[in-house]
């Protein structure tokens, strides 16, 4: 909820982690944003959100963004623990799997933002294919091992949009 309100703010960016942390790898998106928050110093105009499995509550935070980076658990038919980056033309297709008008999930939030002309200019999805979604609060070993690669993909997406991400470790040294 720390959104820049300065009129001269250069751009508005959000990093959103989604998923259920009670279902092991399902929570990988939330674990990724926790990692980024702990590991990097980000400018105040970047909103970092742990969205959990929420939807409409996030509407306001996702309005009029220049860039939205979503970290999530994804199923794209690739091998377990694969890191997937989707952007530009891949993203709309990704969200077109809506099955009824009543699924108020992330795809509905984005569709709503489109309808009200407040959609993000760019969306990048960084996803990790799950190994297990069994009940439990820890990631499987394979998905945990994929975290650095997914983290690098998020940092690279932020960098490409001109967001400075300074590693906190480098600062301390």
């Amino acid at each position: 909820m720390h959104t820049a309100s300065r009129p001269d703010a250069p751009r508005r960016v959000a990093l959103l982690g989604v998923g259920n942390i009670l279902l092991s790898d399902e929570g990988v998106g939330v674990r990724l944003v926790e990692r980024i928050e702990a590991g990097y110093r980000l400018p105040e105009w970047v909103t970092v959100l742990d969205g959990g499995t929420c939807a409409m509550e996030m509407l306001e935070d996702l309005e009029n963004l220049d860039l939205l980076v979503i970290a999530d658990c994804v199923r794209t038919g690739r091998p377990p623990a694969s890191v997937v980056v989707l952007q530009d033309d891949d993203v709309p297709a990704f969200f077109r799997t809506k099955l009824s008008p009543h699924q108020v999930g992330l795809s509905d939030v984005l569709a709503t933002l489109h309808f009200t002309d407040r959609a993000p200019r760019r969306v990048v999805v960084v996803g990790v294919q799950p190994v297990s979604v069994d009940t439990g609060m820890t990631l499987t070993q394979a998905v945990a091992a994929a975290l650095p690669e997914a983290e690098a993909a998020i940092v690279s997406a932020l960098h490409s949009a001109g967001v400075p991400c300074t590693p906190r470790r480098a600062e301390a040294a």
Partner: protein
Amino acid sequence: MSQRITIDPVTRIEGHLRVDVEVNDGRVSKAWASGQMWRGVENILTGRDPRDAWAITQRICGVCTTVHAIASVRAVENALNLEIPVNANSIRNLIILAHAIHDHIVHFYHLSALDWVDVTSALKADPAKTSALAESLSNWSGNSKHEFAKVKERLTGFVGTGQLGIFTNGYWGHPAMKLTPEVNLLAVSHYLQALEVQRYASKIVSVLGSKSPHIQNVAVGGVANPLALDAQSVLTMERLLAVKEWIGKLDDFVKNVYLVDVAAIGAFYPEWTQVGRGITDYLCVPDIPLDGKGETFAIPGGHIAGGDLSTFKAINTFHDKYFLDGVSEAVKHSWYDYKGGNDKSLHPYEGETTPNYTDFQDEGKYSWLKSPTFYGKPMQVGPLARVLAGLAAGHEPTARYATATLERVSSIAGIKVGLDAMHSTIGRHAARAVACAVQVDELAAQWDRLVDNMGKGDLTTFNPPTFPKGEQRGVGFHEAPRGVLSHWVVIKDGKIDNYQCVVPTTWNAAPRNEHDAPGAYEACLLDNPVADPEQPLEVLRTVHSFDPCLACAVHILDTEHTEVVTVKAA
């Protein structure tokens, strides 16, 4: 010929609610509601510190985060007999009410209105006629001809591009759609306005809960953040004044738009007061405590048998024995096994969560939901139970809004619509709006209480808990947006020994119980009309009238297409 329709998922991509109906001669003759996913959160909690349970349980569901946090701290406080400061109680009440109002507005406009509203028909509407109609019903400022013309133009552009976005996959042109183009345009316009208004409720939760979507400002013993009249990073007077302003905006919308729309749309569907009656044994709990012990409440709750208000039996305190002794859960038709056999139900303190998945067996096990009962009988829970209990208990605001709503429907429909019509699919929507109006008034009242008490110089928000050796048991109940929620905790030597959550959708979407009696969805679906088995809109109307919420616990994005409706000869 009999046909079997399977709708899976009813709600989300990884859909956790599956509904099967058998249709004979255009009517539902048999129904099954099935939770398609195991929620084993209870097992995660065993052995943990009871003070941490609320932060974990609020992750059970994406829509109802706050309600699990509240029920969880109440359960632990109940076990310890711990009183909370009045400020903490007021802050929790404000969070509870703002969350509920948000939930009801979003449910009606964004999750279920499209069951009744045909977006494509709105393109044929005359904005001037729409405005005349709207202004005859309400003095809401967003009902001008200009506003409706703007929405129509926007919608026309949207449909023209072939991308309906949020409105994709609706049952447009279905024979069960009955609104005139003008009422459709009115509803679509208010759908968009509701998107703007819902944010005020969200902001209240986020300011008082100190974070959104998952609140942080809760603790066993009160709330975590200190109060101050001026300091930074706490709940200041400046923030409270902003909250007051947002309450005003919610009040305007709920009274002048939501309540009016429910009546106007309902008046076009009088036949739906005869559908979806099902179980008329109702259960709700009192909420919005007026003290730190849970002995007096602003909104009443209790049990009603057979739809007869004279049978009302009140639940009075957080330690109410009538409620505590009445709840049990059966697994005869659920994918679990009880050590002592599946032919009897267990009280939540003795509850077991041992999975035993079979397959979908029509006459055997078919759901991951247990089947909760109150003194052995399935219940219907939710806003309708809340409104009926309010009427039975003589709760003045409930009676006022319920009476006004029934009168408004009668006047628009030109027929006398009485209280009996509330026991129905469309009645559940009306009840939700009535409950929401009551909550808006109470939200303002709770704000006054908090500010008054702060004005007296009392800024206490937290009474620290202590955990004695030995065993303590506690229940935290909460009248959540979808109905009665209860968390049951057994604490042994300061650690959680057993934890069971009995959630509203489990009551309503329960499978058959140990006596093979169907749950509320299953009972309410009987005799539902189904005009076109390939487009079972009527089934969705009845299920959605309960505001189902199983689906939200999992969020995996799936690029592979999944079939939603399958129809087979039975």
